[in-house]
């Protein structure tokens, strides 16, 4: 058994309720595309290229640890491998019609883990549970409050201070900006980061401490490319792989969140 632990920031530029899920710019929900930025497209991007705003985290989900059975492997060709969800997957909640908030399935679900030479690809089963409304097999398990776990994973223990630091960076950036569109964008970002609700609570950090857990059996089509036999073992495509992970730490300015999890891959 090979177990890969992965984590990192990903981006998903998606309109939120009550905007329709295919809203391209964001109007009545909490997310907006700024002038000059491309339309919102809902695609979950675990790797660049992304639409990166200044002072926001670097996106990239990678394998950080490899375990052979119970033992950590100090050297392994998949250490540092890039993790990707292929074929432009989206959170397919469709304003709650497909799934309620916090249970949005990721559709389609094709996991790709790749280094320079080694490429592992596996998709979820092609059965109605995974391929048809309401995609029960791909749904998350609901919203979980886990501020400590998210702080440990992201290294951000004080999200309000984190956003205050970003505001300070933006204020500094503003001083040197002459372009009226870019200036307007900076002001809008500062306004979003400083916004408070009727009770005086900051809005931007509101969802940072929450996560969506997923558990998906990967028993569909798959492939392994290892032309130089770097893996040193045979990956079993006849048995399901299992991927378990959480997505959380939502940053509405960056339109990014953090993900962390494991994929378990049977070997022969």
């Amino acid at each position, binding site marked *: 058994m090979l177990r890969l632990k992965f984590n990192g920031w990903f981006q998903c530029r998606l309109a939120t309720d*009550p905007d329709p899920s295919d809203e391209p710019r964001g*109007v*009545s929900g909490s997310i907006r595309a700024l*002038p000059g930025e491309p339309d919102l497209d809902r695609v979950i991007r675990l790797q660049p290229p992304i639409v990166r705003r200044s002072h926001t985290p670097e996106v990239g989900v990678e394998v950080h640890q490899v375990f052979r059975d119970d033992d950590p492997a100090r050297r392994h060709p998949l250490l540092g491998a890039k993790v990707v969800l292929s074929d432009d997957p989206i959170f397919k909640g*469709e*304003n*709650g019609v497909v799934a309620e908030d916090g249970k949005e399935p990721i559709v389609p679900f094709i996991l790709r883990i790749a280094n320079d030479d080694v490429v592992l690809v596996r998709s979820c089963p092609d059965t109605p549970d995974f391929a048809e*409304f309401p995609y029960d097999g791909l749904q998350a398990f609901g919203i979980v409050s886990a501020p400590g776990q998210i702080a440990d994973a992201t290294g951000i223990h004080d999200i309000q201070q984190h956003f205050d630091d970003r505001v300070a960076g933006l204020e500094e950036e503003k001083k040197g900006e002459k372009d009226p*569109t870019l200036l307007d964008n900076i002001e*809008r970002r500062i306004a979003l980061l400083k916004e408070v609700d009727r009770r005086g609570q900051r809005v931007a950090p509101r969802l940072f401490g929450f996560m969506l857990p997923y558990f998906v059996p990967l028993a569909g089509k798959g492939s392994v490319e290892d032309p130089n036999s770097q893996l040193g073992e045979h990956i079993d495509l006849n048995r399901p792989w299992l991927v378990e992970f959480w997505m959380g730490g939502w940053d509405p300015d960056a339109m990014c969140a953090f993900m962390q999890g494991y994929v378990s891959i049977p070997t022969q």
Partner: protein
Amino acid sequence: MIDTREELVNALSEAAELEHGLLIQYLFAAFSLKRRVDEGITPVQQSLIVDWEWTVLRVAHEEMYHLASVCNLLSAIGGAPQFGRPNFPQPTETSLVEEESYYPFDFQLERFNDSTLYRFVIFELPEGETPPEPPEQPDLEGVGLRAAPDPLVYSHVGLLYSQIREGFERIPEEVLFIGPKPYQDVEDWGLRMKIHVVKDLPSAQEAIEAIIIEGEGSPGAREGSHYDRFLKIREALRKERQKHPRFDPARPVVLNPQTRRHRDAGEGATLIAHEVTREVAELFNDIYSTMLLMLIQYYSYGGESASQRVMLRDSCRRMMSAVVRPLAEVLTEMPATNEPEGGNAGPGFEIYSGMRLAPDRTNRWTVLQERLRQEVEDSRALAQYAGNYPVLARLRRVGETMQGTLLNLTTEFGEG
């Protein structure tokens, strides 16, 4: 003067009609706004327009909550929910007999512009407040300031609610509040706004006061009221026009677009002559009526189980966001006529016939199911035209969402 149950029910029914009519006019104006820089706006104007749309949609959402609170007020005194209303337009000036005009101000589906904003300000005008300067069109003088026919006489929305409040205060509490206490909508419908539960005189007064304050603000504190928000948008529009005199924030949407003539509508409609657009507009109207039927069913407390009621409510809310709005936006990009300069269509919110609830619960579901099935089919069929009209590609998702809504309802109501 309102001093009987019947008069109070009539006044609340008229208030429900008003709220419904107002929110549709706000939605229509919001949906007509330009969204992309290739529509002749700058990136900064694009942001400005999104801000305006956000504000107008927010006011429309609040009107939906007012409508829900009015339903609670009706329910508390033994009245039925009111979701019917006459079709647009309901003008005052062009009526053959002015005294018979339906409302004391023009009800028009008109794209976002200064005269539309002026009408919105007049709708929400606080009692005693001097109306702002009218738009620069000479033919609009005096709009919205005439009296309605007896027995209900009011010149603005807040005044109608003041009369309703007085009616509640005149009729003895122990006589008036006969509605079953559980028949009150207590949900926030996912928008973190408050629907007022009405069970006695103080709670009725509180509900009415909240509606008035949200619309007009309180004397000396208009900040954040609908009236104030529309005034601010109007001022921002004026400033932007000073900088860019040719700035037009809205698409060239025709006035009161309709698929057919309606006996209950006044003059001033624009018939949609373009065949594909008319079919899309008919689908929009059909889905809008389906949603109203679901709302009537939800607010009628006719024996549905708690989980069935939750599914009805959630399906309505989701349809507003995921179906009604995308279809409305699609229409504002479709041609209204076959002429190149004939303008764009828009959502007419037409009601083709009176909506009534079947007395049998099973029949209600059968009717609803038949409508939804047909609407799924029509969405899919019209999406086939996306090759010629790319904006219609959104109908594929509308069809999927309607199919999902049908399946969700089926889990609660059965196969039918």
